[in-house]
């Protein structure tokens, strides 16, 4: 009985702590935003497409027609999503795991949902989950070798983001692996590179305060560590909207549909959120892009797991002292005198 009380107290303490943090983050916004009744910071519902679409293009064109070609904003009318943002809720793990959530997405547990992925992708996903169950964690992640996570993993990665909307482009900046998405407004897809990229090619249009985005030509990657692979044919339709939750929190809600004819048996939808984070600004945080030089002390060892090169290893790179020119003054990554 004492144990049960202890657990209950711990849960209550954690829940209380969470709400205190949320309240602390819920600071006033200078921007007028529509308040969506019933919306909460943590659990917006997935909004599925109005009907089934076989391709992202078909879905995107339908939304464009619904919006009569879209809203042509000017700099004075375009929605402003200023400040620093952090990721919040996302429902993506529930696509692939029975009762899936972020609490188990990268951790042991969870039952793979059948019939969602194509056979080759489901087989790989089952093997990945088995590895997590056996070792407590996925042994190796592409980030170890500074491979870009790209889309759709970009939508959740838990670091610092900024969003800049302009009439002809929207920029979505993430300190994570220096990944910046550019959304070309009222434009056609262009690929003079003849290849795919981590974040793909994104076009979009505005439907009043909603930004609709269609992304294609994305490198094959993962939905997330612990989640399935995506194929090089994935295309994604997103609808972004800033809301103010009932708690007073500025939130970006992104309704997403994945079209992956190689990896998925049928299109799948999820919702992701970002929350405005004035606490980061109060700390003095500014986006500092990742220095892959310092993360490249990570490597994949002979057992297939992520490991580190340590001081004394000839290949170790001192994260503050590293330089290719040690004999020239002022060349180390050490301006603070350490």
């Amino acid at each position, binding site marked *: 009985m004492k144990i049960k009380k202890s657990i209950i107290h711990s849960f209550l303490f954690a829940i209380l702590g969470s709400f205190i943090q949320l309240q602390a983050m819920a600071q006033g916004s200078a921007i007028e935003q529509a308040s969506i009744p019933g919306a909460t910071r943590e659990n917006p519902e997935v909004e599925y497409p109005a009907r089934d679409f076989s391709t992202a293009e078909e879905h995107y064109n339908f939304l464009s027609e619904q919006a009569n070609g879209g809203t042509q904003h000017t700099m004075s009318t375009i929605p402003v999503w200023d400040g620093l943002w*952090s990721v919040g809720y996302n429902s993506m793990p529930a696509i692939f795991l029975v009762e899936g959530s972020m609490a188990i997405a990268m951790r042991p547990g969870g039952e793979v949902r059948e019939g969602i992925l194509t056979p080759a992708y489901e087989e790989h996903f089952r093997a990945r989950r088995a590895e997590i169950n056996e070792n407590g964690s996925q042994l190796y992640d592409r980030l170890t070798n500074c491979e870009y996570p790209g889309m759709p993993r970009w939508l959740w990665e838990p670091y610092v983001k900024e969003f800049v909307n302009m009439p002809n482009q929207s920029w979505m900046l993430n300190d994570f692996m220096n990944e910046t998405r550019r959304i070309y407004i009222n434009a056609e897809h262009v690929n003079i590179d003849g290849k795919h990229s981590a974040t793909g090619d994104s076009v979009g249009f505005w439907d009043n305060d909603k930004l609709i985005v269609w992304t294609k030509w994305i490198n094959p990657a993962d939905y997330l560590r612990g989640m399935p692979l995506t194929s090089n044919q994935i295309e994604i339709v997103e609808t972004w909207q800033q809301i103010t939750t009932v708690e007073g929190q500025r939130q970006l809600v992104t309704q997403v549909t994945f079209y992956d004819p190689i990896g998925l048996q049928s299109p799948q939808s999820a919702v992701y959120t970002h929350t405005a984070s004035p606490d980061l600004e109060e700390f003095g945080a500014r986006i500092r892009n990742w220095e892959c030089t310092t993360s490249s002390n990570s490597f994949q060892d002979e057992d297939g797991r992520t490991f580190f090169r340590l001081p004394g290893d000839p290949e170790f790179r001192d994260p503050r002292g590293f330089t290719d020119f040690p004999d020239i003054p002022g060349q180390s990554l050490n301006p603070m005198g350490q």
Partner: protein
Amino acid sequence: MKKFIMTYTAMIIGSFLTLGQFALGHHSFAMFDNSKERIIEGTVMRWAFNNPHTWLYIEAADENGEMITWGFEGAAQVHAMRQGVNGTTFQPGERVKVIMLPLVSGEPAGAMCFVQKEDGSIARPNDGVCDSEARASVWQQNGWLNSPSLTTYDLD
């Protein structure tokens, strides 16, 4: 012990309720032995407040009494800041006690859980591999922070 483990589990699960506050490293944590915590006392050599991970390097004795460099991985900058840590938290030359989850290989490195500074204050630059607030409380309550350097506590 069962009570401790269940309480700890409950606190970890509870912490996930604050979804926007996740602190998960950019890479897998499979290299760390999360069944153990170890205290290492030494002198700060370098504090690298870097993305994607912060690193604290200290000079401390190994099992043979030889002074060597130990490295401890912490959270990305944004997560460390949310836990009250920034680029000036540690200074070269200061004495610290690092409580960490050791590498499974046994090499002189690990995942920082929390750090006790010379004035007794606790700094929490840890990544999601450890609930530093809860663990610091456990270590303080048990008096483990006075343990000799290299002492290891088994969490099982």
